[in-house]
């Protein structure tokens, strides 16, 4: 496939000619109109225009037009014609035209179906089959909605589907055969195209090992969100073909995501207002008229207030999940003492602890290093785990919150994931509750996952708590895990990096 014209014309051919020839062969194979090919060649040779004269055209006027005959096997296809000008030596132009004529002839053969004519030989058959195979592959690629670019191992763009043109407004014939750097430059020259696109191409230029992906937004020719991925391509024999870039239009998907998020935020926000009244007025009666209430009314009002609290927790959880999903969660890490965090969570849940008759003990060494975390979110993590421990321990039991420093991964507890930032602090919440069967372990941290068993039935919850804990812990550089024995209890643990390794706060 790879023509080596340098051997044919060793003296006159430059590197730039070789690249241009490569590009013309690509255009000859892919562009439908010969004008595209001729324009690219005229541009390269620095002549105003080029044309093809068919064998039936009148004879040449030797002083104004240079004609180079084009042949396919024994057959004369016509002449490649260039206007002669005074500032270009005639012989030099003739040599160079001669050099490029085979690429032009290739296009004529491909487009005029010369190989289809009667009396065909084995070479004709092979040419025809190649062309048909190419047409089939192109038809398939062009029928997909994705824009696909293929860069060969010399970092030259050898394929671009029409979708690329509709996404970027850059004609694929304008870029075929260009180097990745030249293509990135074209993209930089278009004001409406994102830097990210050019940067992605540049970053992966010459890299035939990594697979990467991402997304960016286009402003022109029309606003779009493009999701892209790129990976090296090998043919079946294991030979590296190059690197593929695929771009998918995800505008509509992102729009729907945004609508969903906005809707959830709006609904959650609108729910808070009526809940403020429900919760506030029941509390107002409970707070100010306690002595005048009969026991039944007091109990009913407490139930209203308790359930208003549950709804508030639910709304907050849904808002948190939405923020986590859309990367809109804001974390302000600072050095935090674990003991304070646990204390704050325990105080918030004190009434529940007392009500259920649980005993809470806290085991935190006084010399524990500070952790690097968002204080409010850390309290939320511990509160969630503690609240689960309270909920899933049905009979009055014992809950232990402990914390200890871990210097190296070797010191981690047995069940902890090994891939961890160390040194860290591991905080654990152990209960004597109903426990979790091993079969649930892999789905436990998935959102909306709730275990339905005889013993857990009737325990309220949305299945969001642990999913939020996992996200909040991981966003802060930690990991979460658990160990459990059905009917004996569970221990949920998480790690959080310690503050002495933490980067300096940005403010």
């Amino acid at each position, binding site marked *: 496939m790879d023509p080596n014209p340098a051997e044919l014309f060793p003296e006159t051919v430059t590197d730039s000619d070789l690249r241009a020839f490569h590009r013309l062969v690509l255009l000859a194979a892919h562009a439908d109109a010969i004008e595209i090919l001729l324009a690219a060649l005229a541009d390269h040779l620095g002549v105003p225009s080029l044309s093809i004269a068919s064998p039936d055209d009148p004879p040449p006027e030797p002083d104004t037009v240079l004609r180079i005959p084009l042949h396919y096997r024994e057959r004369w296809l016509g002449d490649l014609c260039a206007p002669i000008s005074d500032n270009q030596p005639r012989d030099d132009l003739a040599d160079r035209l001669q050099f490029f004529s085979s690429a032009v002839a290739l296009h004529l053969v491909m487009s005029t179906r010369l190989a289809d004519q009667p009396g065909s030989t084995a070479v004709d058959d092979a040419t025809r089959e190649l062309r048909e195979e190419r047409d089939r592959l192109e038809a398939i690629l062009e029928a997909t909605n994705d824009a696909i670019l293929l860069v060969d191992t010399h970092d030259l763009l050898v394929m671009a589907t029409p979708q690329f043109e509709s996404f970027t407004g850059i004609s694929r014939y304008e870029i075929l055969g260009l180097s990745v750097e030249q293509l990135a430059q074209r993209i930089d020259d278009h004001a409406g195209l994102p830097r990210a696109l050019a940067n992605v191409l540049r970053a992966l230029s010459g890299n035939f090992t990594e697979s990467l992906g991402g997304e960016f937004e286009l402003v022109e020719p029309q606003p779009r969100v493009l999701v892209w991925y790129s990976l090296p391509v090998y043919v079946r024999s294991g030979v590296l073909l190059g690197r593929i870039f695929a771009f998918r239009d995800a505008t509509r998907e992102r729009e729907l995501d945004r609508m969903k998020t906005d809707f959830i935020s709006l609904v959650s926000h609108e729910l808070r*207002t009526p809940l403020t009244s429900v919760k506030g007025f029941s509390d107002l009666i409970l707070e100010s008229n306690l002595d005048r209430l009969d026991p039944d009314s007091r109990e009913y009002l407490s139930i209203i207030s308790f359930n208003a609290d549950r709804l508030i927790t639910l709304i907050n959880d849904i808002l948190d999940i939405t923020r986590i999903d859309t990367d809109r969660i804001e974390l302000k890490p600072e050095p935090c003492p674990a003991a304070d965090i646990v204390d704050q969570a325990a105080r918030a849940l004190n009434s529940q602890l007392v009500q259920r008759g649980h005993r809470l003990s806290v085991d935190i060494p006084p010399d524990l290093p500070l952790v690097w975390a968002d204080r409010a979110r850390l309290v939320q993590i511990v509160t969630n785990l503690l609240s689960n421990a309270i909920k899933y321990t049905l009979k009055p039991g014992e809950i232990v919150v402990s914390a200890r420093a871990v210097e190296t991964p070797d010191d981690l507890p047995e069940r902890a994931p090994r891939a961890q930032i160390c040194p860290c602090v591991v905080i654990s919440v152990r209960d004597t509750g109903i426990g979790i069967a091993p079969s649930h372990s892999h789905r436990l941290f998935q959102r909306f996952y709730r275990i339905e068993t005889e013993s857990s039935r009737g325990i309220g919850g949305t299945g969001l708590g642990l999913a939020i804990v996992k996200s909040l812990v991981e966003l802060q550089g930690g990991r979460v895990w658990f160990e459990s024995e059905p009917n004996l209890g569970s221990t949920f643990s998480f790690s959080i990096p310690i503050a002495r390794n933490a980067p300096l706060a940005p403010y």
Partner: protein
Amino acid sequence: MRMSRILVAEDEPHILLLIQRKLETAGHLVTTATDGNQALELALREKPDLLLLDIMMPGREGLEVCREVKSAYGDSAPPVIIISALGQQIDVEAGISAGADDYIIKPFSPRALLERVEAALYR
């Protein structure tokens, strides 16, 4: 404990009533406004001892009322507490940078509200 004059601006009538009742039961004198312009006018005319302001109100937003009141009275400006359903860190920071002395997120417990009001009054 002395009686304080408190201006409450809130466009939700039930929440306004809730706040009003809790503060009055505790012995305070409450003036109410249901939009931001009215709140600012009352605040500048009567100089209450403390303002409780909702953020999202018709006319003028609570944060804007807060800024105007703080700049009008300068060093002798009364304390301002923002009450809002906007509960993210960034919202609280916006409230504090508008000059608010405290920020209460809805829904709130009436008792906690009273505690925060009195803490701001007798600070």
